[in-house]
């Protein structure tokens, strides 16, 4: 019984139930209206409910016919480092500017893989910081600060 909780079908179905339920319940606050004069909640309520049904069918199918297709291992290292790289880019872009944001994003992103070397990543970081500054700010004219003092 416990393995069904790790089956891809079952988990995907439950995810759909959660997402559909969230939208369907949220839609109740918007005013449903009638089919003739639809309120803003009508379409989300219908879609959310159908999604809940689809999710339940998928999970039920997993219980009914065990495919034995279990969810693979989650590799947290790339996920966390890339998440951090993007958030770091966003924060530094607003506070210090594009050059620092590029340097930081490349270096944090490099933590995602064991194959990266410090020297190689530093080189990519410098090239990206200079290249992006020239290409996007000087040449394409994006309204980004290169360096805020």
């Amino acid at each position, binding site marked *: 019984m416990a393995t069904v909780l790790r089956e891809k079908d079952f988990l995907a179905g439950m995810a759909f139930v959660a997402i559909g339920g969230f939208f369907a319940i949220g839609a109740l606050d918007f005013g449903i209206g009638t089919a003739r004069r639809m309120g803003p909640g009508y379409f989300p309520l219908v879609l959310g409910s159908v999604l809940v049904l689809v999710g339940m069918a998928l999970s039920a199918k997993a219980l009914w016919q065990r495919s034995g297709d279990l969810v693979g291992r989650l590799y947290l290292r790339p996920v966390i480092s890339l998440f951090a790289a993007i958030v770091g880019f966003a924060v530094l872009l607003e506070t210090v500017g594009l050059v620092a944001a590029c340097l930081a994003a490349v270096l944090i992103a490099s933590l995602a893989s064991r194959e990266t070397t410090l020297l190689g990543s530093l080189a990519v970081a410098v090239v990206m910081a200079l290249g992006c500054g020239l290409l996007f700010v000087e040449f394409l004219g*994006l309204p980004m600060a290169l360096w805020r003092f």
Partner: protein
Amino acid sequence: MDLFPNLSLGFATAFSLSNLLYCFVGVFVGTLIGALPGLGAVTAISMLLPFTFGFEPLGALILLSGIFYGAMYGGSTASILLNLPGTPANAIVALDGYALAQQGRAAMPLFMSAVASFVGGCIALVLVGVAAPAIVSIALEFGPAEYFSMMLLGLVAASAVATTSFLRSIGMVLVGLLLGLVGMDIVSGMMRFTFGIPIMAEGISFIVVAMALFGLTEVMSNLEPHGRPSITQPKTGWRDMMPTRDEAKRSVWTSLRGTALGSALGALPGAGPTISSFMAYTVEQRVSRHPERFGKGAVEGVVGPEAANNAAAQTGFIPTLSLGIPGDAVGALLLGTLIIHGIQPGPMVMSRHPELFWGLIASMWIGNVMLLWINIPFIGLWVKILSIPYRLLYPAIVVFLCIGVWSVANSTFQLYLLAGLGVAGYVLSKLDCPASPLLLGLILGPMMEENLRRALLMSRGDFGTFVESPISGGILAACLLLVVLTVMAEFRRGRRMQSSRLERNGT
């Protein structure tokens, strides 16, 4: 037919200096992206999309579609040399292409795949020019009920054909449709699911979603530890590229069969280049007098799928351009581009902006010619690019994603959205939930709601309006049939898998 005056208008537009430049940049970037494994055309298009905001709408379309069919050319390079598909549509080419590469004849399949792609692309383009106006003339009669049904069919077909699990893809379509509704409701002005964040009123940008699910999630998955094969450095002289006389003769019919198959399948929503190339391979194996050669370096195994995927890449534009209903993620992105440039997609595009439609068609033909010249003499260059290690490449991709997403609205809020959606996308990909249906739903969501509302307003709330019109009723019947057939097939497959598992456990 007034195909020829229209084509001459198209070529006149496409031959302007700036459009030629956009076309070249598009196909060049496309070849590059296609050649690099782990970077798909959808990623590249979504990364470059924000930078085309300032272009003329036609220029933007030319550049972005160039990336798409350019990637079809470039993708075979990685398949043949690395046994790693550059794009999913080129995966099957690896079977015979890589076998030939191991025999020291890598240049020949590279050359033949460029030629086959060219043949497939050019013939399919003629079909686009003939078929799209014909479909438009029917679609002009469509009312909101027909539109709603048509979009429904597009979404159902895309989920039914493209993947193994219908319930999953339909679920992802629904998630996409729901995400598309986030933001201000155009009719009532009410904020929906914005969590009180003012910038969310504009909705969730499809560009951010595409970059998160096709860019960031891809990088995350690629970084999972598994071995990468080493590259074989091929000889790329002219003489090495030439097929033998026998191989050339066998390739003629193969490329035409591949083109026919790809053109037919490409125009259907959901099927697209990937399925066409797999089908073309199977067909070639069936009709061949020497099926045992396949997998060991048969030239037909390269030529057929390559002609098919490129033909499908071209005819895939038919539903997008004529009905305004995209068949796959690339069509969805191009449709989004039209909307950003203030052009309402649909059958009116061809009559209101003929230069846009015919200019794009002409540019694709020019692009195919350019691709032949970019690919064949510079095979050596693409081989070198393949040897850039991924550890240096992926941090650069992350920075490009960040800058691209930021420039969607010049705001860092989109970056936080990118990071969050990227993690969500990784979890969904772990559950085998495909991202393309979500993107289709996201783009079509607001349009579907609007047409549903209009149809029911006109019929005074009577749902019968969807079945009373013969066109809409017929489309809905087709939808229903498709759903029933797919669900039945899926359950049968599930039961077979179950019984085979039980047998295994029993012994």
